[in-house]
């Protein structure tokens, strides 16, 4: 079939006029699956398990959107992308949304013409060093050799940080976390820098985690979130509010345990609006009334997803920190459902 398509494409030099990009929502519904761009693997955030089923924190967002739109959390085609290919994949329409540890920056939003639909993890670039190096602050790293995991804004932040502090360093750019850890453990670099979440994940799996310290400086803001193409606001709304629904659900105490009970109706009007027993928020999105119920039903609310994939009980062992609800001193603050 592929061959015939290809021959067809070649044979008809017939230059079909550019098909105006149909609405993504209709396309997804017609296709029956959601094409979701993820990483090629970041522990806890997106990784296929031994059975080949994608698991992780970013993956959960994809599944929630699929559940909201297609009523099936498994109707997702996960498209692994690298740092190089992720934007091309999204721009060319190969994927409908990208949930891949992507930092929300001005130029990506404006210049590359994407729409960030929110933040599902507040990260920042940190440093890790062996304890016996005796370094307590990143500002003492003058002349150090620094392992950098390339592919994100890491190099730029690092260059800016050292420049701003007037100290020098030797960069060792490395493609994958595994190779960076090899180098770091062999002492080929003094410090290892990447997103603090990845540092914590790697450290938790060292032979002796206590022998390494993560320094207090977080040298960048890395709001990571799902993004879609510019120009299709209906679709962007769906992704944005699905994420918000997960966050709001935690704030309102809607969990996978009490979801069915609350979906029958409750005393809290916002819960009712969220779960579709009051108002018609789903209709406004072009979905049905219990879209959010389905999204939350996949793996619970934001807090539950966090705990299950990257929380302190997992080998990744991340604390909520900035990613706690605003009521708990974190930054998670979903606009109200009304």
């Amino acid at each position: 079939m592929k061959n015939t398509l290809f021959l067809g494409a070649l044979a008809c030099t017939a230059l079909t006029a550019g098909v105006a990009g149909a609405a993504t929502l209709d396309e997804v519904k017609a296709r029956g699956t959601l094409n979701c761009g993820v990483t090629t693997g970041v522990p806890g955030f997106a990784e296929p398990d031994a059975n080949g089923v994608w698991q992780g924190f970013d993956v959960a967002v994809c599944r929630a959107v699929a559940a909201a739109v297609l009523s099936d959390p498994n109707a997702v085609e996960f498209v692994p992308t690298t740092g190089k290919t992720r934007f091309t994949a999204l721009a060319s329409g190969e994927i409908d949304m990208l949930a891949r540890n992507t930092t929300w920056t001005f130029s990506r939003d404006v210049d590359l013409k994407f729409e960030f639909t929110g933040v599902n993890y507040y990260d920042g670039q940190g440093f890790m060093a062996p304890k016996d190096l005796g370094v307590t602050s990143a500002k003492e790293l003058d002349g150090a050799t620094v392992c950098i995991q390339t592919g994100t804004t890491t190099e730029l932040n690092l260059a800016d940080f050292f420049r701003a502090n007037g100290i020098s360093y030797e960069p060792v750019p490395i493609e994958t976390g595994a190779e960076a850890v090899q180098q770091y453990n062999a002492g080929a670099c003094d410090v290892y820098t990447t997103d603090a979440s990845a540092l914590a994940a790697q450290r938790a799996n060292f032979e002796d985690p206590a022998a390494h310290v993560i320094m207090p400086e977080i040298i960048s803001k890395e709001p990571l979130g799902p993004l879609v193409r510019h120009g299709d606001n209906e679709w962007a709304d769906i992704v944005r509010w699905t994420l918000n629904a997960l966050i709001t659900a935690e704030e309102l105490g809607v969990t996978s345990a009490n979801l069915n009970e609350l979906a029958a109706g409750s005393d809290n009007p916002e819960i009712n609006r969220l779960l579709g027993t009051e108002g018609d928020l789903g209709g406004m999105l072009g979905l049905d009334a219990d879209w959010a119920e389905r999204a939350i039903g996949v793996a619970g609310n934001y807090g539950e997803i966090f705990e299950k994939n990257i929380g302190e009980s997992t080998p990744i062992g991340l604390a909520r920190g900035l990613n706690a609800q605003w009521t708990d001193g974190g930054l998670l603050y979903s606009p109200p459902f009304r």
Partner: protein
Amino acid sequence: MSDTQAQTVAFVRETEIPPSPPPIREAGAVKWVRENLFSGWFNTIMTLVALYIILRIVIGVFPWFFNGVWDAGSIRECRDILEGATGACFAVLVDRWDHLLFGFNYPQDAYWRPTLAFVLLILAAVPALFYMYVPSKFLIGTALYPFLAYWLLWGGTLWLPIAVLAAIILTGVVFRLVESMTVSTRTIVAGIVGLVAGVGLAYLLYLGAKELWFISTSIGTGGAFAGLMSLVFKAFSIFTYVFFIPMGIFVGYAIYQSASDGGLVTLVTSLLAIALMMLYAVGPVSGVLNGIIPIELAAVESRQMGGFMLCMMLGAVCVSLSIPLGIVLALGRQSSMPLIKGVCIVFIEFVRGVPLITLLFVANVMLAYFFPPGSGLDLFLRVVIMITMFSAAYIAEVIRGGLAALPKGQYEAADSLGLNYAQATRLIILPQALKISIPGIVNVAVGLFKDTTLVSVISMFDIVGMIRGPIQQSTDWISIYWEPYLFAATCFFIVCYSISQYSQWLERQLQTDHH
């Protein structure tokens, strides 16, 4: 002397004395060791150095290998079992065995399909590899293999590959039919085909001219270069506008004219036939047939394939596709027509001059822009296109070597028999040139097969991509390093070593001269 002897000898030995055993240092293992290992101070030093190196490697690797843990669920469990001792964690191979071989996404209940395809590949390769011992009728099996393998790997209905096969066979029938027609019948066919081809070509060229104009207007005028390019495209466009009707008429007429000797009309008719069948007949026919007698396997998409299987697939598909393309390029490079020769040289030298990795980047991020919007070729197909182009250029050079090695007399003999170019090439030149080129082609194939690991750079999950991505980045096997790479190296070594041994054997077989 002689007579004294004859008289004085009291005893004449009648049997020969058995040879006394050679001195111990000149016999058996000792001699072998002396001659091969310690003949002279230089050799002795070399031997000692070599032994030292081997010893160091064994001492370094042995405990790690011997202490290996084969049964654990994660790298943390492995460490617990080892309790700080040196040792490998081979458990990752057990745990992710399927992923390493088939990728993480291939349906688990369908693993038998690639396995069967692999076994059949070996069976199908035998008649081609050992053509001198196997009756040539077994080659039919080899020819059928791609269709069967396509069905096994990608699934879907068996009728699709069968329909494609039927289309190809039908094209062959058409070819023979037109070739064997009487001239008067063929004139009618040539007239119809010439008309269709002429009109079709003119239409395509008209579209092309329009397209060129469109390009020239949208390049923009920023800068001298853009202005120049715009002018160039305008010139091309005008050129095409002027010539699209004469070209159509001319080609149609040429086909009509060729009715007498049959060369062109046969070719064009066959091409038209296969194009039409592929576009309009294969899909519906296979659909209908599947409706009547459904023979189906669950469809698997190419992006679900991975692991070592993906390397094998890319290697096999690209090499087999690139051989015909390579032949065409090699012949083109030998051509006496400057334009065709130039195009072939530019293509070959360009492809050979850039690293495969940049071509893969092209496949990944650029190629999509070259196809009509929304045609959405999948990554596998794009990569196959680029790798095929890549290996075709190398194979073309190997075949060019083969062509150059043929004595000039072969070409002259073909000419003097009155064969035309196509006949001479098909019957005399290529069979000999290809035979000389086989070892070279096998070497290119091995190189290409190894290069398939580069697709890991563009987020495809071949065995290296599988290791660097989903395995090293999984919570269970985070940052495991040596064991999976060693496994990948072993897989490649087994396959490549066997192929290169075969190639050397073949080279000896083909070497009939003594120098």
